[in-house]
């Protein structure tokens, strides 16, 4: 998953769960059925899981662009510079 996809997935998960919670409470209170509330919420959790947990392709629409290896060889490799240590007096 790319960065954009990760952000989308986090928001989607939270929105789906909050909405299914709200709908569950409202419908359960209206029908006076605790069981209905729990079933709707459980359904919402399953839906959120299916939508956000697996690595669907549409979360990878903005992939990171890595440098092509043949291009990298044309330029000098970065050198590691030894660190100067300042001793305490």
């Amino acid at each position: 998953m790319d960065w954009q996809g990760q952000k989308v997935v986090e928001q989607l998960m939270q929105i789906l769960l909050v909405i299914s919670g709200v709908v569950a409470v409202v419908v359960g209170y209206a029908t006076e059925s605790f069981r209905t509330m729990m079933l709707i919420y459980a359904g919402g959790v399953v839906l959120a899981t299916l939508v956000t947990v697996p690595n669907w392709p549409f979360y990878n629409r903005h992939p990171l662009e890595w440098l092509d290896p043949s291009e990298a060889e044309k330029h000098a490799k970065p050198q590691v510079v030894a660190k100067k240590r300042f001793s305490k007096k």
Partner: protein
Amino acid sequence: MHSFGYRANALLTFSVTALAFICAIASFSDKFSNQNPSAEIQILNINRLKKQSYGNDEVSLTLDISADLQSLFTWNTKQVFAFVAAEYESPMNSLNQVSLWDVIIPDKEHAKFRIQTSNKYRFIDQGHNLRGKEFNLTLHWHVMPKTGKMLADKIVMPGYSLPDAYK
């Protein structure tokens, strides 16, 4: 959110937290229900009032209990536990409460009832103070919710008394 495990964990945690919120809201909604239970108890007969071999008084009663506890049931009620207690004063204790009968009411349909029964549990005094004793019969109930805090309340019915001599 970079891996399967990370997303699964985040979803699990968030969904359980949201579930806790849902249950709190459901429990809070009980505050908006109007509750007006009613009950009446008659003593049909005092079967025996005797002194046990240990010296304690024991009485056996037949009760006619009628109650309408239907308004206690909300969508968030698991069951209602109701019991009848005899309350009186004695030289040894300022308040004696003796449970005579109880019932577990699982749903609204069973909450309106009338039953004639002898006392389910023995009415035994700590001592021999029951002759001529005046006592209250109190119907207590505990409303046990599906989520949330248990609620307990009662109706006190005064004015009952026992005979003056053993029989």
